[in-house]
């Protein structure tokens, strides 16, 4: 990429729930055309961080961090403007009310036309159609959200994020319920999107999935960043053991891709 400046910069983000400090001075950058994996055990603050970056969770005070998007103060933008730039993609969609998959995807347009009267229906429909084709869920369009499987709903969620028109996707366990076919397809999609200059953050408990696709990794432990850099350099046995001290983990390269993979060593004793 010719543009050297990072797309999103995260500076010194701190956050606490009551007295529990969840994030401590976390800083890193997201570049165009890269997938960044955010890894860490449960409770290390990954989801909280994604919500803060997207502006869903407000910072507790002006000096508890800053998010800059293309050099501007991102959190000072209006809610719809934020949703147009950075899309937080949740692990699931709430399906309390009867809504079809197509209607759910159309909701991604709300940040473009919050007003009922300036929406241009046909263009919006075409956009939603394209996004659902892209995310392999066009055949589900007439189905009710609650009749879909978890993995299918996640494809719909991805399509909705695409409709938002954002250039940065924050995937919060968004691939967790997909079967291997869908995961592989989603992986290809993410690659395609970053080749168009998008930037993607991936939070996943599936370390091997994350290391397969991510160009960079950020390791979080108890709210602190312990490492950030290219996947091949960052994922080492020592770091992974520091992150997950319980099981005896081993990192070894994948036989054909050479990407670092995490294995259980001896189980039990």
């Amino acid at each position: 990429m010719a543009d050297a400046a990072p797309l999103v910069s995260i500076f010194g983000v701190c956050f606490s729930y009551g007295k529990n400090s969840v994030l401590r001075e976390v800083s890193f950058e997201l570049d165009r055309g890269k997938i960044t994996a955010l890894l860490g055990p449960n409770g290390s603050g990954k989801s909280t961080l994604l919500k803060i970056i997207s502006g869903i969770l407000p910072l507790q005070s002006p000096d508890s961090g800053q998010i800059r998007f293309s050099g501007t103060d991102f959190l000072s933008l209006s809610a719809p403007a934020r949703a147009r730039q950075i899309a937080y993609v949740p692990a699931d969609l709430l399906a309390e009310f009867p809504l079809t998959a197509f209607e759910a995807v159309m909701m991604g347009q709300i940040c473009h036309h919050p007003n009922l009267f300036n929406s241009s229906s046909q263009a919006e429909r075409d956009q939603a159609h394209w996004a659902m084709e892209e995310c392999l869920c066009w055949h589900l369009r007439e189905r009710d959200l609650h009749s879909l499987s978890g993995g299918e709903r996640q494809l719909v969620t991805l399509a909705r994020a695409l409709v938002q028109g954002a250039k940065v996707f924050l995937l919060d366990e968004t691939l967790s319920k997909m079967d291997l076919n869908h995961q592989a397809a989603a992986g290809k999609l993410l690659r395609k999107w970053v080749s168009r200059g998008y930037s993607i953050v991936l939070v996943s408990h599936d370390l091997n999935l994350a290391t397969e696709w991510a160009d960079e990794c950020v390791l979080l432990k108890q709210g602190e960043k312990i490492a950030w850099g290219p996947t091949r350099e960052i994922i080492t046995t020592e770091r992974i053991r520091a992150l997950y001290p319980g099981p005896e983990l081993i990192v070894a390269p994948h036989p054909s891709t050479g990407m670092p993979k995490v294995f259980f060593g001896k189980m039990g004793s």
Partner: protein
Amino acid sequence: MARTSLFRHYLFALSLWVFACITALKFGVATQLDPELVMQLRLPRVILATAVGMGLAVAGTTLQALFTNPLCEPYTLGISTGSALGSVLGISLGLQVNFAGLAGSSFFGALFFTGLLYLISLRPGTNNLTLLLAGVMLGFLGSSLVALWMAVTDANGIQGAILWLMGDLSRARIYGATFTLTVMLFLAYVVWTHSRELDALLMGEEGALVLGIPVAQTRRRLILMTSIIIGLCVSGGGMIGFVGLIIPHFVRRLIGSLHINTLPLCAIWGSTSLVLADTAARTLVRPYELPVGVVTALVGAPLFLWMMLKRQGDA
């Protein structure tokens, strides 16, 4: 939802409303009544039932999206009771007895109770059922306070007040009813312009934030409008339950949940159902009259129970 089938739904609902209105005007104790008398007595009732039914259905739909809970409605959440408490207080304090005054104090009662529920819903760990229970308890508290107040102040016409508390459209007068209908149409329109925000709120608070909705601000605005609607409904017809629950549920089944289509159809069905319920209340046990709230509860409460148990079964 295809345009043509949507059009058919609207056409059907509107024809049913017209049919309900004609039935309400024609059908009664004495069939050979003076036509002028019919107009004086029944026409205002039909207009008021149309307005209140519309208001209750629109308020129910809005509350369900606001709290992301398909079991919400003004009556079961206790907001109607809060509104009734407001009007009883208003009357007893001698603030105003005219129509606008009554509507005003009803509105403040509704706003106060909705605000309380909103604060409860913000507490971490509050789920759909706790919110609902909190609403039911607020309702109990409200009706006890109303009873207490009426006992203490020895209000005149206590019999009439009790009837009104159970939902009663018989006090309708042509000017008041027409005024209520006009304002209600306007308010329903204003809520309708927020259709897209309401759609986003169906995905929950976080889900709406993800879509770029300033949730707190939107909720405050919608709570204010819903409270005005409920205040107007209660000052016009007392506490009428379950219309705001059953109608949105039924309409969402028919045409889905996008509010741009759902809200208007809910409004029409709400009007139709209350006009029919009021006709039933007038004629079922003649020569006596039932409060219309009794009719809606007789139909609505079992349906509510069924919906709740079914939801639990699904979960």
